[in-house]
């Protein structure tokens, strides 16, 4: 369904009013970024609604403006791009495409929940935001938002894990896909299934603290680290924002690595390892690839 010309005009008028108001009141707001939402996600949202839904469109636009002001929205998501924040996924894809499919009485509530989720995730560990953005990117309906969210949250925070056993599976992951200059260095676990890999050449990330930048800037300086969700299949989550010093290189899970060195000629000199009863990870001196150890079989959560 294509939105009527009158509906589009009324929505754009609301958007222009909001733009002027935010520009005058808020230093963190960018009119340019806001305009990019008007040409991408907004038409998709309008196509699924009818003129009586103008209050919902207004709410959507207000939340986009607020998201830009707070630095939650770095612009609409482009095709093939990984979301840089959960809010970006919500206001570029989930709301424009899925919100119109909900019954009208549920729409405002769903929009409020999605905003709250975006804002709460922005102040949660970055890996949680990245993992949920990945897990919920393929959502097809918002009817069961809570159940879908519970399922994904459980996979990240409370996973059911099998021990590695004596014959774990080695999975090779190329981190140059994430950043061509990334040189995997020291590693540590952020939670039982998510590991953080530091770039050995770039030093600690996040030295530019958020405190110094102030709330309005919402600067997230997170070069130099990559997080990997050690699910099956594994997922590269992107920058982890980790500011921890991983400490000196260590050898954990020694027997597994010794066995792997015998079986796989690609497995050469180790730079650093991290291993628990359920997962293992190693970086190599001469490779941009990392090796993950996963159990042979693991029941899905």
């Amino acid at each position, binding site marked *: 369904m294509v939105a009527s010309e009158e509906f589009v005009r009324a929505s754009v008028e609301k958007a222009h009013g909001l733009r002027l108001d935010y520009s005058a009141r808020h230093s963190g707001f960018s009119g340019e970024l806001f305009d990019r939402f008007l040409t991408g996600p907004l038409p998709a949202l309008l196509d699924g609604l009818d003129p009586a839904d103008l209050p919902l469109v207004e709410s959507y636009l207000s*939340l986009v403006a607020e998201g830009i002001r707070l630095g939650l929205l770095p612009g609409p998501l482009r095709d093939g791009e990984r979301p840089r924040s959960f809010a970006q996924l919500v206001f570029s894809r989930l709301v424009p495409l899925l919100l119109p499919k909900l019954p009208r009485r549920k729409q405002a509530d769903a929009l409020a929940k999605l905003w709250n*989720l975006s804002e709460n995730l922005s102040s949660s560990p970055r890996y949680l935001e990245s993992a949920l953005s990945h897990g919920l990117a393929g959502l097809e309906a918002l009817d069961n938002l809570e159940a879908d969210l519970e399922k994904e949250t459980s996979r990240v925070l409370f996973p059911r894990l099998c021990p590695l056993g004596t014959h774990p599976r080695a999975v090779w992951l190329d981190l140059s896909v994430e950043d061509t200059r990334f040189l995997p260095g020291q590693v540590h676990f952020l939670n039982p299934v998510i590991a953080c890999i530091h770039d050995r050449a770039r030093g600690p990330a996040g030295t530019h603290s958020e405190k110094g930048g*102030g709330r309005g800037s919402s600067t997230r300086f997170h070069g130099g680290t990559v997080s990997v969700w050690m699910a099956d299949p594994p997922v590269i989550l992107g920058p982890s924002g980790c500011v921890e010093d991983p400490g000196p290189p260590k050898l954990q899970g020694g027997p597994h690595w010794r066995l792997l060195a015998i079986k796989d000629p690609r497995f050469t000199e180790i730079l650093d390892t991290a291993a628990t009863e359920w997962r293992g990870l190693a970086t190599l001196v001469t490779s941009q690839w990392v090796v993950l150890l996963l159990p042979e079989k693991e029941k899905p959560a």
Partner: protein
Amino acid sequence: MNTRETVKRLLEGRAKAGPDLRTHLSDLDGSTLPDKMRRSYLWIVNNAILCPTYDISFGNRRSFKNSAGDTIELTDSMSFSSFILLPMLTLFTCRRALLVGGPGRGKTSSAVLMALLSGMPLDAVRRSIQRGHPQLTIADLLGVPLPSDMMKAEKLSDIEVAWRGWITERVKIIDEYNRIPTKTQSALLSLMAEGYAEMFDQYVYAGRSSWFLTANDDAGGGTFQVIEALKDRIDIVIRAVPFNTGFLETLLERIEKDRSPEEQVPSDIVFTPDELATIHAEILDVKIPADVLGRLSTFLGSLDFCRMASTVFELKNKDTLRLSGHTVSGVCDERCPLDKNVHLCSQTENGVSVRVYQTVLHFAKALAYFRGLFEVSIDDVAQILPWVLHDKLVPNPRSPFFLGKGKDVLLYDRVAWIREMFSSAMSRHASHEPIRKKVQELAGDLNRGLEGLDLKTVENRMAKTASLLDSLLTKNELSGSVYEEIILLKSIHSRYQNYAQWLRQKSS
């Protein structure tokens, strides 16, 4: 916490669905005033003043150097542009700043932005700017007596003066102050220094305010020579920076939009009078640790000392020379045994006044507060010093220090010179610290009060003080910082001596 609880918490927040089918957002919990200050700073940097120079920096430094010796440093923490940050700190501390630099460098724009941040409307700001010119009279500057009163008045107090509105504004801007005639400068001085102006026996009070003066040249190259007393009232000097061509595109965009940044200041970075008052009070509450104070006194204390100024110990300072019409360059020679390349006293013609100490401490507190800290670090002091001392310290060009390789350039770059002096003082501070601690212990004893002390205790303390004084004088090189300690020890001894005298008289 289990998954269900986690998800419940994630979905709860400030957005709520209303009965009108709209989504409503409640306000964010109030961010702090330092947050707002930093937001204002960032808005100005990103939208108003095109300033590529980040010369107030913190954190670890990494240097890059070419074969000709040119060096640039990168740091791993926040850096700020002095041209924007210092006017902001002036605004919040209610002090007086001089913005210097060539025409069109944004000096007046920067001052105007500060007035806008204080909540003044743009029209009012533009009207309140006092522009210096050779014909500016006291009446132009301060106001005029009402003509009708002049005709009828039988005594001075019958004449009502129509004071100019700018006098009571929170932010006062004097453009090109070095073009103001000398007589009018004197009227300005009383307003700046004492906070009031007088005319026909009537007074107007400036109130707590921040002053921004601009000049194209701070070396006295204006139409009129600026009177010394007025110069002395300026707390900080801010240097404008040249335009960087990397910003040409932004400049083009600004022309095409036909709106100046001053017209677009967002309301969330404008401070209310209450907020300004709170910031002022909170800045004063920022703590300065004893170690930072000690380091500052090591540096500033060594500037005023001149071993050659007098044979009387207490008069071995640069004021003695100045009052007799002499200069440091005239006496600082081989007769003084101190190494002129090491001791800072040789580099300056003067020391600094108490007002300067206060200004440094106040601005260092403001900088720490701006950074969101509860106490001042030595880095805050180091970053503030060059701008506060910029016009206060006069270099001694004949000092052997400036004859060293590559040092002559420091004679015309005062910021670099003061930074180098401070860094040199800090490297010597560690060796001086044990002496300072001993003196501070004795001073601490005295500061706890004399009440209840018996004669024996007082005499013991006097003996200790005299012994330390003797040891300092005979076993240490008499440098500026040692001189300061000895003078302090003598004052401690004198106070004990007076008290002991009183005790003796009482008992006899």
